[in-house]
Structure formats: C-alpha cells, structure tokens
C-alpha cells in the first residue's frame, strides 16, 4: 500500500500565508514611488506632441516661407518645437524617475510586511509543524529581502544618480533657454534640437554614471596632485649625501632608530605639508615614536624623500651623531 507523505498545515497558517500574499499584491499594486499621480493625461499630451518630433521639423524650421510653418516665423516655430519636445521628454523622465525609486520601495515594504505577518503567526499559532512551516516561509522572505537590501545600486547609488541626472538636465536646459532668447541666425533650430537631445540624454542612467565616474576620477587626480613632491636642482645636488645618510639609518639598532626618530620629530613641522602628509599616511598610528623597527622604516623613507638643502641634511647628521655617539 503506497504511503502518503506530507505536512498538515492548520487553517490559521493558511490564513497567514493568504495575508502575506495579500500584502505583497497590495504593495505591488500601490507602488510607493513617492511621486504624486500626474494631474493630466500624459499619454494624450505626448501623443499631441508627436508632430514636433517629426524628422522634417528641421527642414520646415529652415524654410524661408512662413506659410510652410502655418504662418509662424522661423523663431516662433523653433521655440514651439523645442518647448513641445521638452514637455514630452519631461513627462517620460518623471515616469522613469518614479519607476526607478518605486522598484526598490515596493520590494522592501512588501517583504517587511510579509516577515512581520509570518513571524507573528509562527510564534503564536498552531502546532510544531505549523510553526516550523511558517518559520521556514518567514526565513525565506528574510533571505529574499536580504538580497534586495544588499543591492548596492538601489540602496546607495540611486539617489546620487538621480541628483546627477537632474543636474545634467538643468545644465542642458540653461543652455537651451539662453539660446532661445536669441534669433535663429545665432541659435538655429539645428543647434536647439541638438541641445534638446543633450537634455534627453542627461536624464539617463548611463549618462549619470559616466558623469559621476568622471567627477570621481577628477577628484582623485586632484587629490593625487596635492601629494606630488616636485623636485628641483637642489634635490639633484644632494643625492650623494642622502645616500650616505640612508646607509647610516639602515645600520642603526632599533633603540638608536627610536632616538633619531624622536630627535627628527622636532623638525617635522618645518617640512612641507605634502611631505608631512606622506609620512602620516605611511605611519597613521604614529608608531615610529614607540617601536624601534617601525622608527627605522619610517626614517628610511623620510631620508630619501626629504628636502636636500644643507640645513635639512645637517639635522640628519646631528641626530645620527647623537644616537650613535
């Protein structure tokens, strides 16, 4: 006789699972985008704007005859085309931005609600089998939510990308509005439509990522340049003496290195900010004043990167003499 294997789940557990499904469905229907619903029929507006996206708007705009433009001058027609295109692009952009933010919010809220319901029923209702089934379902949702929450893109970078998209659009819009204050001889419909295209692209994720990356790269370059040590002829002249000072530092015992480090520390504040920062980066915990081996490694770097004027080299010689006498 065949055996039937299965788990019996109580009615209350079935109710709980039904409530969870309802939470998720409700959340999916009512996406918490944070944006109010549009007060107009966006699709109808965009549909009405379609003639202004026609490929022949450029040729119509440049036609010498106003009759080709329904009696509008070249400038009036240019302005009309640009503003209608901007209107349609804006509507699509706001839909896009709302969809980006609601994607994360919907999943997050649904998972929160589901976990609360399942955990609550698991703790308070049914027998051991029911509790185990509910706990397992709850754990599954927690796991799924963790996946969502560790999505770095949505949690951490999306707000920055939205700000970048808005900034890029605003910059392009400023160019367009400035151009539209002038005649078509100075700001043709061709130029205007190219700028409108820039406005559209500015509101895209690839453009925002590219901008943010470029800015980060520029910031890194600027930070690196601040820590550049620029060498001059005096540095070149002091090479041999520096080499001999380095040899002396390498031969120090740890105890002697600690003495030299403490003596030379008195001179550090007179060095350039750049050199001070470099040495701080090398020993961020300041261990060169406590540990002989670290002091020696720290001094070796300092010697070879240090200024090579006679005063600096005398300081080294005096400190080494004092430690090794």
């Amino acid at each position, binding site marked *: 006789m065949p055996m039937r294997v299965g788990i019996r789940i109580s009615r209350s557990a079935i109710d709980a699972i039904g409530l969870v499904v309802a939470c998720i469905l409700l959340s999916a229907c009512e996406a918490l985008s944070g944006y109010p619903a549009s007060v107009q029929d966006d699709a109808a507006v965009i549909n009405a704007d379609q003639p202004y996206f026609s490929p022949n708007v450029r040729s119509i705009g440049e036609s010498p005859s106003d009759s080709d433009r329904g009696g509008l001058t070249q400038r009036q027609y240019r302005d009309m085309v640009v503003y209608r295109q901007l209107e349609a692009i804006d509507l699509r952009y706001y839909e896009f931005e709302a969809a980006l933010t609601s994607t994360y919010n919907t999943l997050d809220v649904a998972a929160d609600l589901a976990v609360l319901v399942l955990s609550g029923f698991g703790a308070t209702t049914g027998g051991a089998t029911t509790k185990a089934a509910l706990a397992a379902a709850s754990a599954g949702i927690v796991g799924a939510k963790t996946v969502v929450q560790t999505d770095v893109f949505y949690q951490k970078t999306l707000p920055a990308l939205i700000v970048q998209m808005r900034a890029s659009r605003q910059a392009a819009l400023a160019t367009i509005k400035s151009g539209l204050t002038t005649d078509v001889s100075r700001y043709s419909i061709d130029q205007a439509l190219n700028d409108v295209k820039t406005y559209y692209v500015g509101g895209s994720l690839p453009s925002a990522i590219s901008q943010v990356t470029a800015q980060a790269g520029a910031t890194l370059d600027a930070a690196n340049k601040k820590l*550049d040590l*620029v060498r001059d002829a005096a540095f070149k002249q002091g090479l041999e003496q520096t*080499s001999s000072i380095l040899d002396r530092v390498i031969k120090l015992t740890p105890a002697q290195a600690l003495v030299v480090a403490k003596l030379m520390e008195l001179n550090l504040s007179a060095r350039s900010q750049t050199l001070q920062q470099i040495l701080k*980066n090398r020993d*961020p915990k300041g*261990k060169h004043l406590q540990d002989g081996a670290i002091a020696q*490694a720290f001094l070796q770097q300092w*010697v070879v990167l240090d200024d090579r004027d006679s005063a600096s080299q005398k300081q080294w010689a005096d400190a080494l003499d004092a430690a090794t006498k």
Partner: protein
Amino acid sequence: MPATTTTREVFPKATFSLSDVQKQQQLEIKAGAIRSTIDQTSDPQNYILITEWNVLGENDP
C-alpha cells in the same frame, strides 16, 4: 593584503635626466619601497616617479 601608500614625485625633464630619476628610484627601493616605476610619457614636461610603500604598524592590535 597589506595596506600600502603611494608617493608621486615630479622631476622636470629640463633639470633631470632619466638616469637621475633612476638613481632616486634605486635609493627608494633601498629605503624599503615595495615597488617603483618611472612614468616617462604621460607628462611631456616631467618624469613621474611613482613608488609604493607598505603602511607601518598595520599588524599591531
């Protein structure tokens, strides 16, 4: 992987020959640098000596 810190030194080509920069590079290796490279091309006016150093005291509690 141990933490490292990088130094960049700018040597004007009008003052320094490649050999001068190589001598400085050897000195830094002797002083404990992990590695060092000379960038001869990215800046037409200067040699750039880029040297990597280990961060000290990193394994201490």
